[in-house]
């Protein structure tokens, strides 16, 4: 997103989300702030358990029953979503404003209904202007064509099990589109797919974003896959964003040691015969209060202060921020690891 006068479509302010489990409290989202700009695609990247799904589920009122927002705001369209109490309020947001695509398409499809009927339901519910059986049907064909499913007349009458994994994910995308959302959250939509199919779905999402004026929030644990789709990247660790910037900022000028570590462990950067970089240890327990920089215990080059105080947010530029003491003027100058210094020169294959 190069343009400077960006309009915010969704704004998260100092959000805290907790879960209670057998009398203990897990602090899953720790004081998170994030602006999502209209028309952008932003990737949320982090290890398993870092809180990517919990955060985005909270935008749709889909937290598990034992989860709650303990403080903070989620501003959308002039409303604070954290104040919503009734299902009725959420129903106006879900699908029609914010839609979600999940990793396993089977969880969002009804195995007993034809896929055409499932898309038609979404059209009838969210697009009352489209009236009459024929009009709805034509609309469904159009969505099927849009997501790259050929022979829509025939496919309309088929059931989910008659589709391959990649095709099912296209159907799920068609259902999401039929809700006519402004924001599309994609939670690891390609993780279970072959690389070639993955690449095609990514391309499809980009095309649809342009055609339907969507804002995309793309969730993944793999920094490698987001270079292709993301305008901006937000790196999450232990329930907080440690670095946010444009894709160029984060790939070419990463500042947080955790971002360095995530980039370094990509097998695309591995040299045959040499060990791949690994991140030692495990993420901290979210049941305990985290002291200092949450990544410090796994960071071999951590500073003393990292163990004592949580780093504040440092702004590197108008588009780029990171929470690391390395950006404090008093900190020693540390270079990112050798292997990731020249990603700009890395060639694509094929």
């Amino acid at each position, binding site marked *: 997103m190069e343009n400077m006068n960006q309009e915010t479509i969704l704004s998260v302010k100092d959000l805290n989300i907790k879960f209670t489990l057998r009398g203990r409290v897990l602090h899953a989202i720790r004081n998170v702030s994030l602006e999502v700009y209209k028309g952008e695609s932003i990737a949320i990247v982090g290890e398993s358990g870092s809180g990517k799904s919990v955060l985005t589920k909270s935008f749709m009122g889909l937290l598990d029953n034992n989860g709650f927002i303990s403080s903070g705001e989620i501003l959308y369209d002039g409303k604070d979503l954290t104040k919503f109490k009734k299902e009725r309020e959420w129903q106006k947001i879900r699908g029609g404003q914010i839609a979600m695509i999940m990793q396993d398409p089977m969880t969002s499809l009804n195995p007993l209904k034809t896929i055409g009927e499932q898309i038609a339901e979404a059209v009838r519910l969210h697009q009352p202007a489209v009236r009459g059986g024929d009009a709805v049907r034509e609309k469904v064909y159009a969505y099927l064509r849009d997501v790259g499913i050929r022979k829509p007349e025939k496919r309309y009458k088929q059931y989910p099990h008659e589709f391959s994994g990649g095709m099912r994910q296209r159907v799920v995308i068609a259902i999401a589109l039929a809700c006519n959302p402004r924001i599309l959250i994609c939670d690891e939509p390609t993780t279970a797919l072959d690389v070639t199919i993955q690449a095609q779905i990514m391309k499809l999402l980009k095309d649809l974003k342009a055609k339907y004026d969507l804002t995309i929030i793309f969730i993944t644990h793999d920094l490698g896959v987001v270079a292709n789709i993301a305008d901006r990247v937000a790196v999450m660790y232990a329930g907080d964003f440690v670095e946010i910037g444009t894709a160029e900022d984060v790939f070419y000028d990463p500042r947080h040691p955790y971002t360095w570590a995530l980039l370094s462990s990509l097998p695309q950067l*591995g040299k045959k015969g040499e060990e791949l970089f690994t991140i030692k240890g495990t993420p901290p327990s979210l049941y305990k209060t985290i002291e200092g920089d949450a990544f410090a215990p796994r960071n071999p080059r951590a500073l003393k202060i990292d163990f004592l105080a949580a780093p504040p947010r440092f702004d590197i530029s108008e588009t780029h921020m990171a929470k690391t003491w390395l950006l404090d003027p008093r900190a020693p100058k540390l270079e990112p690891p050798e292997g990731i210094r020249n990603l700009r020169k890395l060639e694509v294959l094929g």
Partner: protein
Amino acid sequence: MSAEREILLDVKDLHVTFGSGKKAFEAVRGVSFQVYRGETFGIVGESGSGKTTIGRAIMRIHPTSAGEILYKGNRINGKISRQLDRQVIQEIQMIFQDPMASLNERAKVDYIVSEGLINLHKKMSDEERRRRVQQALAEVGLLPEFASRFPHEFSGGQRQRIGIARALIMEPECIIADEPISALDVSIRAQVLNLLAALQKSRGITYIFIAHDLSVMRYFSDRIAVVYKGRIVELAETEELISHAAHPYTRALLSAIPMPNPVSEREKKLTVYDPSIHDYDRNPPRWQEFRPGHFVLANDREMEEGFGEVNDFDYLSS
């Protein structure tokens, strides 16, 4: 490739068919390759391409419908002697994709890891068995006390280590790793790959590494066979394959590798493989060596028109 490399596994015109009559489906349609001792031989292809079936046919899990699989020169498919069967069970092991699904949830790690060993050495003392379990766990970086725990108490990466320990305890010469890291988080993938590489160094294990992702293959494999719909369409040493990919399917796989470089990724043109470009009905393909050690499945027209002339070859851009 030096001439005196020892062939550990020789797969000759392998066919595997599922079902029979009208419903018969030929998952592997005439596949041939050789695996040298100590190397990592990669098999890459999309889901349903038959790569797992090839691995399982070598493991004798799936019966073959034609062709031969030779291990150290002895045929191991079809009916074989009990002695050879025991040898194969011990010397060729498999690691599976989903560490969650492949472990028996109700058994303790101790039992899971030693199950194969007990089956093979019914008379082994319990003391010896425990000793071997401890050794295998140590080798994959797990603590001895993990032996008395259940699989659900472990993370995905730890479960995959348990799966590797279970293979290692047999002291295998060859391990078939079927998508061993696909289900794992990026940071844990690197740990498991490093572990596999270290074991190869210390024990000289030969790997057949099955995956859909060429980027991991490139890092890990010495040679790569590209499988499409039950056939190998291209085979070469890794860097040769990457820099001189000939078959359009290989090129599609290459172009799908996501690279951590946003500017070039955004401009990249995605190559999609369209099998209808071939005119194989009139002019069937042959398996041909078009550069030393680099094989491709192509017909004569394709060879003439530059199947081998690569890099600027753009006959299937979408």
